[in-house]
């Protein structure tokens, strides 16, 4: 389906092109509905209040990611996009992941005995430092 997306409008208006577009319109509508459903699902699940925060986060982010793929894949027609674009996006995502992961990781990765102070600061026996 690539050619119809890449703006090779030479054949624009021609019958097969028309069908092509018509088919995409169907896809768009389906995606649209899927997105709405996804939203409703996330919100609904949220009202169930799972015991563990992790589950809530996991589900919410999972659904969000799926929605993101739908938008990027179909609305932004990435699935039929050229590989130059992929190269750019993949490296971007990698660097973003690196930034996020290393930054957050380094927060926990501290010298032995390091403490984050909050007011009030707990006193500590000189004997036992650390968390």
């Amino acid at each position, binding site marked *: 389906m690539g050619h119809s997306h890449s703006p090779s409008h030479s054949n624009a208006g021609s019958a097969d092109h028309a069908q092509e577009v018509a088919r995409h319109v169907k896809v768009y509508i389906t995606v649209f509905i899927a997105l709405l459903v996804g939203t409703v699902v996330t919100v609904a699940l949220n009202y169930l209040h799972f015991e563990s925060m992790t589950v809530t986060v996991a589900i919410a982010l999972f659904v969000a990611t799926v929605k993101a793929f739908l938008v990027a894949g179909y609305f932004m027609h990435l699935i039929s996009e050229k590989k*130059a674009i992929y190269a750019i996006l993949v*490296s*971007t995502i990698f*660097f973003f992941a*690196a*930034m996020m992961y*290393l*930054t957050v*990781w*380094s*927060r*926990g*990765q*501290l*010298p032995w005995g*390091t403490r*984050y*102070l*909050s*007011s009030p*600061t707990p006193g500590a026996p000189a004997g036992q430092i650390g968390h």
Partner: protein
Amino acid sequence: MDATTHAAHLHETHDAHHEEVGFLRKYVFSTDHKIIGVQYGFTALLFLLLGFLLMACMRWSIAYPGLPIPVVGGLLEKLFGSDVAAGGVLSPDLYNSFGAMHGTIMVFLAIVPLAFAAFGNYVVPLQIGAVDMAFPRVNMASFQCYFLGGVVMFASFFIPGGAAKSGWTSYSPLATMADLGHRFDGQTFWLIGMVLLITSSLLGAVNFIATIIQLRAPGMTWMRMPFFCWAQFVTAFLLLLAFPPLEAAGIMQLMDNLFGTSFFLPTGLIVAGNPVDVSGGGSPLLWQHLFWFLGHPEVYVLILPAMGIVAEIIANNTRKPIWGYKSLVYSAFAIGFLSFIVWAHHMYVTGMGTKISTFFQTTTMIISIPSVIILTCLFISLWGGSIRFNTPMLFVLAFLPMFGIGGLTGLPLGFNYSDLHLHDTYYVIAHFHYVVAPGTIFALFAGIYYWFPKITGRMMNETLGKIHFWLSLIFMNLVFMPMFAQGMAGMLRRMYNGGATYATTDGEVGLPAAILKANIGVTHAAFFLGLAQLPFIFNFFWSIKNGKKVTSDNPWDATTLEWQTPTPPPHGNFTKPVVAHRGPYEYSVPGAATDFTPQSEPDKKH
């Protein structure tokens, strides 16, 4: 904001300049990549001068703390008031402002605009045989953002409280608290200026990448691109992906300064014995991570274009192909890629666990390898050449060992354990100045001497050029070499009195007298370094009018496409459509008529 300008400009690429254009449209609001390149060049050189002048005042204060600055002292007092420059003496506050602004101006307003924007704009489209950049309007917007950013930064000197005082790194909480007296303080201006400069770089980066991907002339395959274009290509990606995080951080620090948020302010801050009335809960280290996520790639933004220039000029003046063109390209990519994951080597002493420290030490060591490879290739390229020692080549030859020294001294900093002793000392200052000053600046000088005839149609004066070179080389080293010793001895940076506080006295062990005395020598060397630029400045302006006219479009007998255009190149660059038939550095091809075969020259065979 940038969203609109960008998206809007994206489309209005070529209704630009059809009609006969007037002076304003031609020189001020031009969309021609060459004019924009020149605009960038001039502005950046002026900022380079400003950066130097700030530093000159700092150097005086370092050598003679408490003594009024000669010549400009009175002026400073008039400009900045007697509370910070009483009797022309630099107060610690003013010193900190100058220090922060010297760094900021040199990096973001002088070298990057000169190396990336100016040379990139002028040369890249010519070298790949394009008629212009892909998005001329965006290109113009990029320069305007840069100019605005420069104005904001410059203006910040004259607002109540003065310019930013917290180092070019602007670490929180200091950046937020340095100037609590004023709502719109220098730091706020700094942040606004940075957002403008970042926007400018982003627009530029998008433009460069799109241009190189889309507008290469027929036959200009990727592996036929001059290394300079590769360097700019990688650089553009660094700017594109590393700058936004700093923009985000800038926005957050702006919120901290103006709206009392606590992104970078931890719980329980106590200033002068009083609890600070903020919510707290923020993280000072978050700022450092986001800053250095830009900060490290930025330093390669400073060096890659320089390496590009060096490669061009070496090939041209050794009259032989660059040795290991492919490894150069791959190394540039390796550097680009790795530079995103080494940033925390600037944060070794903030307290790092074993794992994270090991990770960043390892990546830091790995990233030094491609630099080694690049330098090795450039060194080996000299072998078997027929070397012409004209001014550009002299600067380029000097670049090699100078960058070498700067780079090598990066290694002891790259290990967490040895950085324990060297961090924040003048060793670091010497390390990176060797790379950016006798390194990058020399490469830029070389580039100016090299492309000057293409831009103006006249050569710059060789004798003055050689004087400029030798004096600069000598004094650069006299300025920065002693700093290694000072750093090793433990002399710290960012001290308005050059560490006088830490002099050894009877009863306390501190800095040896000799180390502190060196400050005086360095300062004078720095002044002479400034004087050494006069031949250049004179040569520069004089040659525009009176330089020796070039006899051909290709005065250096070069192979790359920019020399196939008329001199200076008209709007639209090439008079006839160009096709690249061969690699970029076909010098002294066995059996060829001349010792250079331009890329555009068709093969004899068919």
